[in-house]
């Protein structure tokens, strides 16, 4: 099967990939995914978000080196409603990543075989309760 001197049969055919946008985004694709796939994708998104937050947090804490005025100026922004909502988002990220991480650790070491869905729903219940409690506390005084 030749065309323009190329042996088409010898060529590797195209490969379809899942994923939104350019590969290698294949892990992030909500289409045709089951719960496990969603759990993994959100775990990865929260993980990356938390890595970003780690360095952002270190940068913010560096304001303390500038003394009381610098830090208290920051506190004025940090106690606004928008910031407190971001704090709740942070708590969601921590809860999700932490509880799903426990699930992955238990399953991924073969300690709790065959319970991945049950663990996911148990984590969801615990996480929702904790998030509501945290959110009420953080936003309650705002």
């Amino acid at each position, binding site marked *: 099967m030749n065309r323009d001197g190329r042996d088409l049969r010898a060529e590797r055919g195209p490969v379809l990939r899942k994923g939104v946008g350019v590969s*290698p985004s294949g*892990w992030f694709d909500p289409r045709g995914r089951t719960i496990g796939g969603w759990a993994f994708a959100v775990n*990865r998104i929260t*993980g*990356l978000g*938390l*890595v970003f937050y*780690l*360095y952002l947090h*270190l940068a913010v*804490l*560096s304001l*303390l*080196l500038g*003394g*009381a005025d610098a*830090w*208290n100026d920051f*506190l004025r922004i*940090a*106690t606004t409603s928008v*910031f*407190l909502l971001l*704090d709740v988002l942070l*708590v969601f990220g*921590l809860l999700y990543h*932490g509880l799903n*991480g*426990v699930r*992955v*650790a238990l399953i*991924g*070491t073969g300690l709790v075989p065959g319970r991945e869905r049950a663990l996911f729903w148990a984590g969801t219940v615990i996480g929702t309760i904790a998030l509501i409690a*945290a959110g009420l*506390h*953080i936003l309650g*005084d*705002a």
Partner: protein
Amino acid sequence: MAVVETRPPRPSRRARERERYQPSVRVWQLLAGSGIVLLVLVSVHMVANHFVVESIGGLRTYEQVLDYIADPLIFTIECFFLLVVTVHALLGLRNVLFDLGLDARARRRVDAGLWLLGIATVAYGFYLVGTLASRA
């Protein structure tokens, strides 16, 4: 006829490095183990910094931060927390980067880069916490 004993050809340096550079079960254990430890440390940190002080969001003022970090137990826990969270974060980042289909040489470079980033992070964090503790 004399029997000539031959040894198999020595693998190339690159092949030997590939052979030596195998992922260890330890990396997975470190990732999972640090994650489990972080459950406790993150909870302590979040409660201490959002749920203890009576203020909006539970956030501490400058003076309250200095008082907080001056406590030797708190100082130790926060330093340990920084170390564990950096390890966990960068191992997780390593997973994401390795999923990009890197060859062995690229993986070694990623590892070297993450080691440097991790050491710098922990060093800066210790400097930050130490400076604040010294001001108390």
